[in-house]
């Protein structure tokens, strides 16, 4: 019998985030049947995209208005769906939202959960994830009736495989979370659309930025190349930029296609958060900084001199 896999689709302003397609590609193993779980969205409009990656069933979940941004209510709804459709595997993205949703599901059904997987072997139920702050790769075997995997965004390249998806409706309007209520949701419109964890290009500033004001040159440049600005621990601890921008062991773990380290020396804790990046470009005044010997390209110069020049070129080009 085919393994039924429920894939929780993460939306951004009603659209499917790009990183979902890599996750669907990873789920498309031998003898699997792929269900996309979509919460509170116009599934008709998403059908074509989901079909083109091999989804054959779309579960259209509607929650009542006051439960829409409630991770506890979403988890309850998904548990109902798991029981109705007899899923043996649940996939979701290991994003900030996923980190607040997948463990809720796993905890309530006492299922094993491996977060931040960059590979999952569905034949043997083996997941690969990093441990000890990116210093080791752990292979973990999950055993149980239902297994939950959080997939690292951008970890798997998406490949199309056309299918035809049916839409199945799940009415979750009576689901209410117990003892957990949403008072206010943050306004995503004010900020950048992409988070650090999902960015293709990250421009990160460290001690070499010297102060918070200088980060403006990184933001200017990032806008031109659709990048997201990150920071080292020194920069957030000095109060130059908020904690949420921190990349590293105690910050965000990222794997963008390109990581541009601006005035970052590259401590072992910083590497823990960005070593899985595709390409690393380091700009630092010190040629002896450890990042300079552990990158793909390095520039011995002041960030303040280089980045504005890059911005200028992108403006013209």
């Amino acid at each position, binding site marked *: 019998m085919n393994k039924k896999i429920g894939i929780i689709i993460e939306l951004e302003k009603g659209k499917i985030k790009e990183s979902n397609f890599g996750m669907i590609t990873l789920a498309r193993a031998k003898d699997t049947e792929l269900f996309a779980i979509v919460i509170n969205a116009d599934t008709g409009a998403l059908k074509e995209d989901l079909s083109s990656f091999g989804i054959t069933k779309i579960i259209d979940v509607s929650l009542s208005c006051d439960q829409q941004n409630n991770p*506890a209510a979403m988890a309850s709804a998904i548990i109902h769906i798991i029981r109705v459709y007899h899923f043996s595997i649940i996939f979701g993205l290991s994003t*900030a939202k996923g*980190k*607040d949703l997948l*463990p809720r599901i*796993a*905890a309530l059904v*006492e*299922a*094993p*959960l491996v*977060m931040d997987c960059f590979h999952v072997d569905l034949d043997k139920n083996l997941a690969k994830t*990093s*441990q*000890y*702050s990116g*210093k*080791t*790769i752990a*292979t973990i*075997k999950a055993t149980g*009736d239902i297994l939950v995997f959080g997939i690292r965004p951008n970890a798997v390249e998406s490949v199309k495989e056309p299918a035809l998806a049916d839409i199945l409706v799940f009415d979750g309007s009576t689901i209410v*979370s*117990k*003892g*957990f*209520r*949403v*008072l206010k949701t*943050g306004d*995503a419109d004010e*900020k*950048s659309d992409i988070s650090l964890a999902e960015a293709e*290009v990250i421009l990160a500033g460290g001690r070499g930025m010297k102060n918070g004001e200088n980060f403006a040159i990184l933001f200017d440049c990032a806008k031109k190349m659709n990048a997201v600005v990150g920071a080292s621990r020194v920069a957030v601890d000095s109060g130059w930029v*908020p*904690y949420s921008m*921190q990349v590293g*062991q*105690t910050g*965000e773990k990222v794997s963008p*296609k*390109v990581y541009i380290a601006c005035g970052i020396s590259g401590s072992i*804790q910083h590497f*823990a958060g960005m*070593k*899985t990046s*595709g390409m*690393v*470009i380091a700009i630092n005044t010190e040629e002896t900084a450890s990042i300079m010997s552990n*990158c*793909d*390209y*390095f*520039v011995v*110069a002041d960030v303040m001199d*280089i980045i504005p*020049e890059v911005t200028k*070129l*992108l403006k013209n*080009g």
Partner: protein
Amino acid sequence: MQIYVCVKHVPDSAANIVILDNIRIDENLSFLLNPYDEHAVTEAVRVKERLLGSEIIAVCLGKADAEKTIRSAMAMGADRGILIVSDKHHDSMETAKVLKAAIEQDGTPQLILTGKESIDAEGMQTMFRIGALFDFPVATNVVKLDIAGDRAVVDCDLSCGICNTYEMTCPCVIGAGRGLNTPRYPTFPDVVKSKKKPVKIIAVSDLVIKASTSAMTLVAYEPLLQKRVPKKITGDCAKIAEKIVKILREEAKVI
């Protein structure tokens, strides 16, 4: 009120991890209180300052050596500790059951705090499992906590500094995020005082734990090595910028 803080004894973040036999790490390195748990302990102290008469209990599952981590938590303000000693590796399902049983045996939790993840296993789930076992609501990556009567109002960071505000009934479980507070590092007298605070040491076998058919088992470790061969980009600033743009456009294909 009784505030329980679940803490973990983890390798120092600056330590080099050496893998032995492809399945374990060389534990001959310095271990300390998980950095996110420092925020949990600090927040417990802040809650106690407002709700006088509260008691903070640090709970840890680990080897005998983990008593050091409990002492650190006590130096930061916990009143006493419970160490459940085990030489085995426990997955987060077992860990949550052990912690729950130890807390239940000890008292009546009104608030349970822990870090949003441990920096060794990075599982990000133990707080949810503890919550599910107690049937308490849970919030993670909490960057602001207010307790008002039997309610907890929390701000949870959803990355990029965007926060959702949730209200939970107490007792509840909090996964502390980095922005929650600035850990108050102990002074020398704090450390001396912490040595006199009581730590109850129990064995996993002293607790009633229901076995599970589900498990997460470590199969192998391998080092995450990345051999990068650095190439120097030279020239004047304009030339360097030109080369960077060319690399981004032609090699990385991101612009």
